[in-house]
């Protein structure tokens, strides 16, 4: 069944920077609750919504995402009828002001213009949420908007979502402005950087943005078009995370330790797909103590784990205590170590250091491949 829309998944804007983790991979490739990658969420949302032609934009360090996404079979994208196309940009200075989504679209304009679908759904690869895009599209078409923009009402806009845009809406949900979140108030409508519009308008806006400024992003041209176009907000409800800083990443993971939140988010009728690795089950040794945690496969647990997320192939030694932490795959925490409020990247070996604790809200971060 040919869907009327194709999907575009874009990368994070150049001003978003997640301390530590970001040095090794784009946000879309970040591990989420130990098992998924952030990009699995927009991809699964699209696949579940019947969208089977998807463009994924990659910029710096594409290897991990290319491997993870592969042929798209695990996202249920028919490889003959559909396609999951990876698009690259030459402009690789990740922090360069020229490294915008508009630059990426312009470099692949031929691919974009060749898509046969009438509509496009644009979603970001650095946010985690659940959304039926088919419903969004139907609504968009019925309402006759020029653009429909997805937003989420939050009450922690002072502490979090600092790299996101804020939407101001009129009574009819018309978007009146789109501006960077300056943390001026708790309650804000955060733009989810997710848009529905006609392909023609999408292409026209890209070209317009390019003409006006080489540093414009797509959000910039949307912001500038609030007066001239009928842009309407569509409120998203349920779990929502914007992975735009280490704090946001940490909090987004920890929120899902709440069983109710997790069960509401992970439902059978809306599966999130991911690349699987045939890891064996996890072995809990006699004497291990694990509570309120999410544990991935192929871990070996001999010590204590509390309020934490344990990745694949992680080893927690005898007498080790892990609290309020995220341990990514293949890390090895040796006997008797105490870790609290930390994010331990992949392939870390904690051997000689016996204590890693952060006292502040911001968790401690241990670099990939480090031996401590």
């Amino acid at each position, binding site marked *: 069944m040919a869907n009327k829309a194709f999907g575009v998944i874009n990368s994070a804007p150049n001003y978003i920077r997640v301390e530590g983790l970001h040095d090794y991979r784009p946000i879309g490739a970040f591990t989420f609750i130990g098992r998924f990658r952030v990009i699995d969420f927009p991809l699964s949302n699209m696949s579940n919504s019947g969208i089977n032609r998807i463009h994924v934009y990659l910029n710096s360090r594409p290897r991990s995402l290319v491997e993870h996404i592969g042929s798209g079979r695990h996202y249920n994208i028919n490889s003959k009828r559909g396609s999951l196309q990876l698009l690259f940009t030459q402009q690789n200075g990740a922090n360069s002001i020229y490294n915008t989504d508009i630059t990426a679209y312009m470099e692949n304009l031929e691919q974009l213009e060749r898509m046969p679908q009438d509509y496009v759904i644009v979603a970001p690869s650095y946010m985690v949420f659940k959304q039926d895009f088919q419903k969004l599209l139907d609504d968009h078409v019925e309402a006759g908007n020029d653009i429909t923009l997805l937003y989420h009402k939050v009450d922690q806009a002072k502490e979090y979502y600092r790299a996101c845009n804020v939407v101001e809406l009129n009574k009819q949900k018309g978007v009146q402005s789109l501006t960077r979140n300056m943390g001026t108030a708790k309650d804000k409508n955060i733009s989810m950087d997710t848009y529905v519009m006609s392909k023609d308008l999408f292409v026209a806006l890209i070209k317009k943005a390019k003409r006006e400024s080489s540093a414009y992003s797509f959000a910039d041209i949307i912001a500038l078009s609030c007066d001239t176009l009928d842009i309407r907000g569509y409120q998203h409800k349920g779990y929502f995370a914007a992975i735009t800083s280490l704090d946001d990443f940490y909090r987004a993971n920890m929120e899902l330790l709440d*069983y109710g939140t997790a069960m509401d988010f992970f439902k059978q009728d809306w599966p999130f797909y991911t690349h699987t690795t045939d890891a*064996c*089950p996890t072995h*809990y040794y006699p004497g*291990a103590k694990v509570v309120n945690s999410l544990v991935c*496969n*192929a871990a070996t647990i001999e010590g204590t784990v509390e309020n934490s997320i344990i990745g694949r192939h992680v080893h927690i030694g005898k007498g080790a205590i892990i609290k309020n932490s995220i341990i990514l795959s293949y890390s090895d925490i040796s006997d008797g170590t105490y870790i609290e409020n930390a994010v331990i990247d992949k392939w870390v070996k904690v051997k000689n250091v016996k204590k890693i604790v952060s006292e502040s809200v911001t968790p401690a971060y241990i670099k990939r491949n480090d031996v401590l």
Partner: protein
Amino acid sequence: MAQTNMLAMILAGGRGSRLHELTSKVAKPAVSYGGKYRIIDFPLSNCANSGIDIVGVLTQYESVLLNSYVAAGGRWGLDTKDSGVFVLTPRERADSGLDVYRGTADAISQNIDFVDAYDPEYILILSGDHIYKMNYDKMLRYHKEQGADATIAVRGVPIREASRFGIMNTDGNGRIIEFEEKPAKPKSNLASMGIYIFTWKTLRKLLVEDMKNPDSDHDFGKDIIPIMLNDGKKLCAYEFSGYWKDVGTIDSLWEANMDLLDSDNELDLDDTSWKIYTEDTGITPQYIASTAKIDGAYINQGAAVGGTVQRSVIFTNCKIAPGAKVIDSVLMPGAIVEEGAVVTRALVAENVRIGKNAKVGEKKSEEILLVAKNVKGED
């Protein structure tokens, strides 16, 4: 991948009646094992890891689940351009009616055309219901080095138990000089594992003759091997010494699961150089609640534990409610143990629900209890 020129055929026909209700809707090779696997994952993964491209799976009993499980060869990476897993059931032909497989050898005979289509030099015959890791490529190299017509994998068993097995008596160089089925006085402790490599041309000829023989049981052990020995063909024994388990009964299936709780267990499913591939779903990690107590367990992703788990194997999507206890047991995929229920020395089948406060199994029972139906709870 380079063609090793050996095609594998897995005999997966077994109804496995000693596994009782576990096989009432599922062929034995599709029975669950080890938190996330099915038994047939072992020969299939061994094939994939040994570089075998084409695998036939012979079945005639309740093939739907097995069929849909196996046909997606991608689980074992066997879905490249020239590789595949093919389910072969009895079929109607221009020259004969529809017929069941009459024996292990007949199952191959009826699919000679399938084998011929790939024109292999060697054929590997496997059983679909053993749990082990084995490099068939090494066995093939041995077969070639020996210049054998057939090579049979054997393993040493305690000599006092040898009379329960098919025993291979060999000369000093690995050549089989005699085969005795359950000998009263075993001369050796080398038991056949039911794993054979044949030079296809040789076997093909024998199968064609066997099909016409009205006195034959069409069985490898009973008919083909003895004939080959009589004919003076060169049969060699290939010794295997790793973990190996035939999971033909509820007790042995339970035991094989329990073996995984041993930190030194020989099967070593965590060895990434010889992975066992299986259906791997994109489900959440295992959720261990604040009320959980885990004391020795092997748990798969997607499970949610709120209660107590002691020395147990917990499969995908199992749920153990707060206050429930699971002791010395195996919970197959989707099994649910409600509040206050206690499961002891039991094997709980797929999607079975143990109701509130129900007690199943006994600490001192000799046999493992199979729970194949929902158990009603008490309020």
